[in-house]
């Protein structure tokens, strides 16, 4: 008889719990915490995909998510806010938002595709800063105050009145993204990407266009981040440059590392942890405004104790329980010191 895979059991339980969430948790949990967890998880998943399968730790994912959000905001609002106020149908806004974000992602990816390690990290950090400052200074499309009153499509919103609808839409999107990322990682494209991650020189000598593969992977991850950005502006109804500033960029990196930077599931585990700590720490008077100090301390502990994040911790527990003495070796989640030959 085949042994039951504990990962699958936990996965099925998590899915059932997520689907039934509106039955047993408060509307605030569903509408605010869990929905936020799901779309932050999507953005973190785009980062984990690049990191785990492409060996690229990107700090530009929040910028891409913001670009999608700002395009949706400009396209779908109708008067009474900053930006272009084009007043389009929200679904056209989604198409435009994702298309622009993927196009910009392709450009970003092409420019960064020949860098590795810390240089890649720095270039993508620059993208994040550029996006933040551009939306802050170009007042035609946003300005410092950002865009308010962004509507969700009629079948999803109004979001505040029908919180469960957006929750299920976000849950569906998160599931679809998870399945898609798992699928892509098994396609020839995904396998080639993993080859590029492990030995770009050998892949190049085998005739693969390494830079193009990296660029395509970046553009694909941009699509994933853009979906997160669209869901974010529907949920929040507002986006401003501070939504994609350095703090937000670091938050998503923290989510990915705390969850586990080498397994996709880590994205949502990390997001759930982050959202809960963020919410409840506000009510502890001596923490209150010091949330980032708290999450920073937790981040340090997790990186030291379990470089594979919470998912890595789980893997160790399973390994010990199944009789293996040691868990799987921890992989270093951010190999920023690695310098590879130029390709």
């Amino acid at each position: 008889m085949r042994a039951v895979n504990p990962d699958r059991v936990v996965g099925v339980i998590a899915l059932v719990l997520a689907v039934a969430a509106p039955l047993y948790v408060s509307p605030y949990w569903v509408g605010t915490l869990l929905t936020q967890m799901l779309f932050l998880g999507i953005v973190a998943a785009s980062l984990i995909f690049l990191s785990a399968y492409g060996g690229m730790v990107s700090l530009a994912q929040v910028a891409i998510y913001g670009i999608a959000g700002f395009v949706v905001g400009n396209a779908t609002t109708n008067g009474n806010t900053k930006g272009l106020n084009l007043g389009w149908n929200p679904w056209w806004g989604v198409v435009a938002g994702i298309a622009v974000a993927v196009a910009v992602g392709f450009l970003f990816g092409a420019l960064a595709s020949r860098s590795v390690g810390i240089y890649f990290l720095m270039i993508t950090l620059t993208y994040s800063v550029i996006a933040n400052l551009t939306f802050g200074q170009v007042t035609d499309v946003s300005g410092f105050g950002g865009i308010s009153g962004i509507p969700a499509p009629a079948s999803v919103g109004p979001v505040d009145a029908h919180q469960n609808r957006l929750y299920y839409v976000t849950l569906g999107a998160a599931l679809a993204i998870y399945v898609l990322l798992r699928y892509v990682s098994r396609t020839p494209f995904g396998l080639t990407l993993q080859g590029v991650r492990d030995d770009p020189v050998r892949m190049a000598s085998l005739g693969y266009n390494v830079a193009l593969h990296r660029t395509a992977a970046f553009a694909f991850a941009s699509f994933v981040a853009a979906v997160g950005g669209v869901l974010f502006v529907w949920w929040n109804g507002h986006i401003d440059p501070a939504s994609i500033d350095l703090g937000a960029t670091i938050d998503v990196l923290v989510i990915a590392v705390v969850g586990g930077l080498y397994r996709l599931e880590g994205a949502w585990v990390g997001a759930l942890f982050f959202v809960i700590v963020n919410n409840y720490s506000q009510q502890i008077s001596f923490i209150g405004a010091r949330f980032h100090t708290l999450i920073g301390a937790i981040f340090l502990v997790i990186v030291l104790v379990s470089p594979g994040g919470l998912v890595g911790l789980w893997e160790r527990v399973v390994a010990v329980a199944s009789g293996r003495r040691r868990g799987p070796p921890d992989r270093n989640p951010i190999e920023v010191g690695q310098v590879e030959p130029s390709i």
Partner: protein
Amino acid sequence: MNALKGKWKLVTLGALVVAAAALATATATARGSASTIKIAVLSDCQGAFGSFDNQDLAGVVTAMSQFAGAKAKNPNKPRDGWTGGSINGHPLKLVGIGCSNDRADTAIKETKRLMEQLGADILIGPLSGDESIAVANYAKQHPTKTFVDGSAGAQDTTLKVRAPNFFRFNGDGAMWNAGLGDLAKNKLHWKTAAVVADDYSFAWTSAAGFIAEFCAVGGNVTKRVFPPLNTTDYSSYAQQMPTNVDGTFVAVGGAGLIPFLKAYEQAHGPIDGKKFIGNLFWGTPGQFQQLSTRVVGAYVGGAGTAGDLATAAAKAYNAEVGKVFKTIPPFGAAAPQASSTFTYGYYVNTWGLLDGLKAVGGDISGGQKKLQAAIKNVKLSTPYGPLHLDKNNQAVINVFYQQLYLKNGKLAVKTVGEIPGVDQTFGGTFSTSTPAPGRTSPKCVKRSLPWIGKTIHPPVTG
């Protein structure tokens, strides 16, 4: 037989007594369990305005103490909130104090936590402009809850968003500069002016107040320069400022003001204070002292308050804040901080809310519709003049402007003008259909404003 009758009488009497007692108990219970009104406050404890957090709460708690019988929990720390306090037997319970950071995103997140997780019925706040636009949009989606502003001065909050359940008893950034255009044209005899303002919504709004009025009375704004917020080197912007104008209006705020003035001096020589008008940042305590004597004589816009006003109402308000709190950290003694735009903003908005609650006897049933209708009709005699709300739930108020002068060789500020009945529309310059204040709006147009020529010179102390 008689004995039997007597017995029945006794039973009837007993039953009546029991019934009366039960009724009395029921009434008492009903009164005792009059529904609690759950109130949350949204303040900034981080970001650019984080240091004013306790002033915000001091405003709220002072109003709660003065108008609803509450008590400050800690006379040296307003953020601890209040105890007690009720309207017509309905206890006023503080369910939470939000901690925002002048970012709209954080304000929404905190508003959701306060309203949805902690179950507040009413929100007081937020502090700053962009936060308030986001909160007013949130309010629109939650018509069964009531929101009053804290101290935010964005014009769009009430003029554009127009949430029927969001009320603002303080002025906006443009209103706070009413009187300055009239002053520049008719007293300082400027015919042309240049404007420099930070490139974001509050500074645009602040500059719009000056531009609208200066142009309305026949002046001409020939140049508008907008350095990005948080610029550190203003030399290129100072170079752009024309010298062939009669005066300059400066709405560069916070950390940028002094670097801008220094860059201006380097580009164009010493500043003549009489040729400059500043917005509220010039008169902010802690700020104007650093301007040095170069700006003596300059006029300064206010923020709807006047700390040196010598009227009985203004003195009583200062005393009230001093009675409820000994100190407001981190700035020290409480009473001198009463006229801070933050303390006063939160105070007057809480007062407006409590007046509305009193009018409906604390009844917030029926989706708070009665309460919202009552707040709309609130009229207050504030320390800084009479106040009522317009059709967009925006206060029509008196505003003040100040002048910088030398006192014992040091720069000081005194209130020199009061403009009564300032409304948000500036005689039609701003409306729901006009573009929001920006780099090119409002246009320079001559028109009549209701308050022109009505400036009064209020009594001041010192």
